[in-house]
């Protein structure tokens, strides 16, 4: 990268840049060499940035009208929906925006899983991403409590009670989280404060996430290290900017469909009933994006072990760069991993489905098998696969398969080069 050699053309620019090198930063971001073979699965980073900013902007506006008080919260949300100019639009964008945010983050995470983007030297990017994901879940959970409907109240009760499973200090922690002996006004006000704070923490982590990305540069669908800049790269602007913008437009069509045509389909009707501490809704379900973890929680018959399993299911991802022992990044060249990858995708979808169903009978059995498989994928399959799988030869550069015609043609030529390439990867 030629950042350090950058000099602004204008005198004023140079004067400013010598004192605060913002123009150098802008130049780095524009010229940032990007692999030229990035596909549309790589556009979700930009889409996620858009989602975060949308949530912050709509959230700021909602905060001007919302009142965090158990007596007024529910009514103030209805006031936003009925009286505030465009309040309905802003609230629906914010509520569905959370779902869109998670949709995009799941695609982004599974993109990493497929192309091995979490592997050396990108472990820190990956771990920062997991922390962002955890904070997103915390923010979404607390945001869901604010309208003070039945699902808000009982969701908050169930989730905060997870901490009571901790031996000895659990009860004390739950009381401390609540600020009382049950979910009540002190709980609502602190959740509101934290719900406002977390997006800015995420914003800070996103800066670190991108910074860490810009050190080794992007992974790519072939998963090989490339020289930067070289004829394997294109500058971020205009090539990637335009591609990201086009993908964002397509994403916005889906977003707008939910907001304008079916704004409540991702929510629960019960949340339009004001919170009542004496009546639990017949069927408590979290928002769709938390369902797989909810299924894991319920599939374990013991309270403490269930909570441990649920948190482990997320935290295990942080150890992924070391659990996956394969030197080859991209699933394109890993025939067996590719199959296990799709089984994992289906497994998570099944967990999501049974998480929405009552925890009994066949659903419970399926949930238990799917939970066991989820952990087996990370703890058994991935470590073993790295040693036993016979991978396909990888090309020496991004340009090679393109210039040599088809990928199959290069494969034969490449066979003897793989050894060298593996060494350079390691």
């Amino acid at each position: 990268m030629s950042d350090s050699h950058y000099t602004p053309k204008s005198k004023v620019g140079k004067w400013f840049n010598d004192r605060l090198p913002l123009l150098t930063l802008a130049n780095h971001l524009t010229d940032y060499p990007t692999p030229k073979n990035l596909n549309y699965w790589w556009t979700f980073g930009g889409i996620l940035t858009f989602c975060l900013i949308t949530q912050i902007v709509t959230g700021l506006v909602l905060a001007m009208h919302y009142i965090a008080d158990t007596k007024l919260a529910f009514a103030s949300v209805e006031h936003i929906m009925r009286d505030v100019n465009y309040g309905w639009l802003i609230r629906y964008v914010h509520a569905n925006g959370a779902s869109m945010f998670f949709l995009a983050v799941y695609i982004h995470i599974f993109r990493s899983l497929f192309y091995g983007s979490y592997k050396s030297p990108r472990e820190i990017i990956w771990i920062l991403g997991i922390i962002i994901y955890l904070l997103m879940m915390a923010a979404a959970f607390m945001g869901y409590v604010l309208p003070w409907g039945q699902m808000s109240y009982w969701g908050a009760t169930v989730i905060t009670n997870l901490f009571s499973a901790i031996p000895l200090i659990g009860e004390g922690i739950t009381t401390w989280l609540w600020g009382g002996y049950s979910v009540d006004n002190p709980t609502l006000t602190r959740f509101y404060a934290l719900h406002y704070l977390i997006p800015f923490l995420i914003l800070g982590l996103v800066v670190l996430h991108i910074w860490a990305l810009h050190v080794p540069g992007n992974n790519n669908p072939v998963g090989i290290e490339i020289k930067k800049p070289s004829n394997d790269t294109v500058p971020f602007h205009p090539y990637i900017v335009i591609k990201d913008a086009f993908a964002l437009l397509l994403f916005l069509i889906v977003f707008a469909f939910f907001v304008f045509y079916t704004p409540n389909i991702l929510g629960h009707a019960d949340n339009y009933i004001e919170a009542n501490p004496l009546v639990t809704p017949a069927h408590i379900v979290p928002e769709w994006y938390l369902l797989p973890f909810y299924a894991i929680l319920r599939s374990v018959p013991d309270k403490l072990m269930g909570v441990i399993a649920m948190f482990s299911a997320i935290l295990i991802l942080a150890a992924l760069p070391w659990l996956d022992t394969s030197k080859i990044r991209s699933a394109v060249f890993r025939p067996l991993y590719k199959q296990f990858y799709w089984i994992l995708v289906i497994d998570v979808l099944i967990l999501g489905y049974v998480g929405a169903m009552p925890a009994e009978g066949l659903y419970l059995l399926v949930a238990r098998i799917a939970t066991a498989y989820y952990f087996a994928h990370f703890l058994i399959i991935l470590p073993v696969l790295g040693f036993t799988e016979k991978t396909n030869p990888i090309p020496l550069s991004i340009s090679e398969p393109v210039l040599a015609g088809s990928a199959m043609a290069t494969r034969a030529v490449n066979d003897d080069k793989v050894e060298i390439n593996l060494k350079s990867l390691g």
Partner: protein
Amino acid sequence: MSDKKPKNRRDFIFTATAAAGAVGVGAAVWPLVDQMNPDASVKALASTEVDISSVKPGQSITVVWRGKPVFIKRRTQEEIDKARAVTLDELKHPEKDEDRVKNPEWLVMLGICTHLGCVPLSDKGEYDGWFCPCHGSHYDTSGRIRKGPAPINMEIPEYVFLNENTIKIG
């Protein structure tokens, strides 16, 4: 380093400064942590008196104490017999029915599932006691956990009979 430097006065000053700093930071952080615990106004609502004169055998009422539901159930003789017929080794959390009530007719307990805090439904479930719809815990007519993920029996709050018709909870 192979040869350890002898401890000198500067090391002592470093340690002392760090220790004083840690105590100072701890003292400054504690109020920020403790402010989240129940405040004086929450603690002030610690007891509730309930008139139970209108509850007929077999009926139960739910009252709020410290923001939580408390079930007050006037049990029928059949329900009492059923609760007392159970032997302790059948129970996940062994407790005698006798130890869970002050007057066998009146069962007073926190109406909160010990799994994750939902309110169980009364006269439901496989043991004709309570059933929690959230994650499927079954309780018997003494509020003891019999089946499902809840680890312990529903909690008995502190209460006294002030007279025949009044219970003070808390």
